[in-house]
């Protein structure tokens, strides 16, 4: 099995009439994703690529209950969109939107934690279970089905790694972009736990970057609970301290968040860490 999404997943798109929302709805449909509804206040009754649009999430749920919602709405209103989905009990929410104020995300996380739904992102490329379903913005053609689970904080860096895996004939069960913001709904630990429990996944690739302690916590978890081979990569070894490197979460602050700390945390628990992203393919191939 893949994790989180598969060919049966019913998807609702919040912000389906916008540029990004409609463009990626179409690409997801072309990949075979079952997009059942969209939501945009004031646009109820319209349709986008044959997908019915509703004014509110509750109306979309009454029409047909989605398993998963994907959020493309602008940053200023994205937190509210997620709260609406949480209130409607949508079990999996994927937020692509970048630039949400971090205090808004703390409010969202309170609601998410209290309700038990899963949030992925914000500021992420989404996820794809190759050959089954894609809920996100990644280029489809670089992926292929296979035994490796990929989890990453970044978008294009993940494409780079996935391309190298596919070129080497190593397919993927699911690729999860957990997002580049300081506060995110799903951590490396949670994603790795899902891959460890997934029968089909035989190896795991973890792509981290500077900032925060998510990679260190993940390393600790791997040391205790993961018996599948894991290969890591950490981006930002040469980044200057106290500078925000594009991602709001990618900042080395004082003694926390440095690439060296993350690399040694991984190496201490036996995770091979690639020096350049494309080396990941050879490293995981040796371990499978």
């Amino acid at each position: 099995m893949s994790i989180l999404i598969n060919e049966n997943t019913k998807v609702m798109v919040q912000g389906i009439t916008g540029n990004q929302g409609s463009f990626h709805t179409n690409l997801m449909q072309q990949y075979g994703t079952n997009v059942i509804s969209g939501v945009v206040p004031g646009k109820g009754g319209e349709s986008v690529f044959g997908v019915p649009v509703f004014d509110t999430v509750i109306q979309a749920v009454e029409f047909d209950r989605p398993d998963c919602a994907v959020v493309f709405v602008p940053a200023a209103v994205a937190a509210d969109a997620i709260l609406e989905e949480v209130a409607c009990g949508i079990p999996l929410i994927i937020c692509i939107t970048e630039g949400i104020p971090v205090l808004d995300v703390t409010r969202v996380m309170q609601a998410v934690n209290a309700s038990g739904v899963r949030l992925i992102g914000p500021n992420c490329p989404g996820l794809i279970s190759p050959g089954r379903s894609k809920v996100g913005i990644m280029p489809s053609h670089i992926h292929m089905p296979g035994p490796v689970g990929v989890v990453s904080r970044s978008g294009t860096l993940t494409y780079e790694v996935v391309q190298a895996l596919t070129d080497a004939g190593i397919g993927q069960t699911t690729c999860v972009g957990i997002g580049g913001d300081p506060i995110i709904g799903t951590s490396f630990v949670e994603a790795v736990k899902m891959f460890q429990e997934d029968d089909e996944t035989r190896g795991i690739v973890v792509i981290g970057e500077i900032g925060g302690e998510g990679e260190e916590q993940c390393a600790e978890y791997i040391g205790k609970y993961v018996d599948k081979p894991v290969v890591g990569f950490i981006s930002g070894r040469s980044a200057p301290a106290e500078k925000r490197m594009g991602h709001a979460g990618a900042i080395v602050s004082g003694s926390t968040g440095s690439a060296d700390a993350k690399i040694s945390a991984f190496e201490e628990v036996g995770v091979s860490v690639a020096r350049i992203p494309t080396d990941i393919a050879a490293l995981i191939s040796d371990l499978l």
Partner: protein
Amino acid sequence: MKLHEHQARKLLSEFSIPVPRGIVASSVDEAISAFHELGGPVVVKAQVLSGGRGKAGGVVLANNEAAVESAAKNILRLEIGGYSVKRLLITDACEISKEIYLSALIDRNAGAIAVMASSKGGMDIEEVALQSPELIMRRHVDYATGLPQFMARELGFELGLDWDQVKEFQSIASNLVELLKQVDASLVEINPLIVDGEGHCRAIDAKIDLDDNAMGRHPELENLRNPEEYTREEIEARNAGISYIKLDGNIGCMVNGAGLAMALLDVIKGEGGEPANFLDVGGGADSVQVRTAMNIILSDPTVRVILINIFGGITRCDEVANGVIEALGSISKDVDLVVRLVGTNEDEGLSLLKTAGISAHSSMVEAVKQAVELAS
């Protein structure tokens, strides 16, 4: 977005957190007249967007006019953390009977607001966290409720304050959380919060970082923006939706995506080269954005090679190629161009480049190797 101490303490005052009187001065003469206006011993403090001011000699106690004059002269000549000192804050000197660390911040790991307090005030809190983490107390705060009074009391008594001081501390700590929420700060820090000679709590230093993502809803804070926080190029880039950070090398980089952009810097260094900048052109960049990015890179006179590394997803290779071609005219003869272009609309992009006489790599590492060779 970082604030100066004098800006931060003004916000503290607005939230009823007591601070000593203070006057901003940008010359020695202004510092002297501030001293006379305050009429007693003062502290002369460098105003820079950097920590480590004390260690750098940027904070000096002065009891008379001559001392103020020499302190101001010296401090205005300093460079601290890469910033030259342009402004001073002259404040009342306070008698200090106790120093406390107090902050409200966004705790990434917990995904919530946290209040941190320590009896080791006045020191670098990172140091305290390393040496004696048990001396740092941390409480998580519900967004809607704010900091409950009881929690502030617990902290106050744990810090060794007496009941009268705890009452003051209670209001300071709750107001600090309110301030964080109201201005969308990621950090509001008082280090130290002191108990003065009369037994009252006062904030004698202040640091505030505001969340850049939230500035859209705070037009009232826009005038607090300090031009020295970013270079002219960094500001121009941000206005165009581009993330740009100047570095020290001679290989100018353009990448789509922050993670890949950081990885490119690492690979360049690994191959023995030195990047001139970090640049994430943003997701879905069009040819105009690419051209702007090229111009920003080229405005750095140390750049010998421009290295473009694009993995098109939401970004289309043909848009990138068009932007690069449009910017070609601004590239001088002694700057080389190395391009790696793959992903969405790759074939269209490559044929556009080919027509313009530019060849492209398909591998990032190969592109980096060539760029490093050309730059050395």
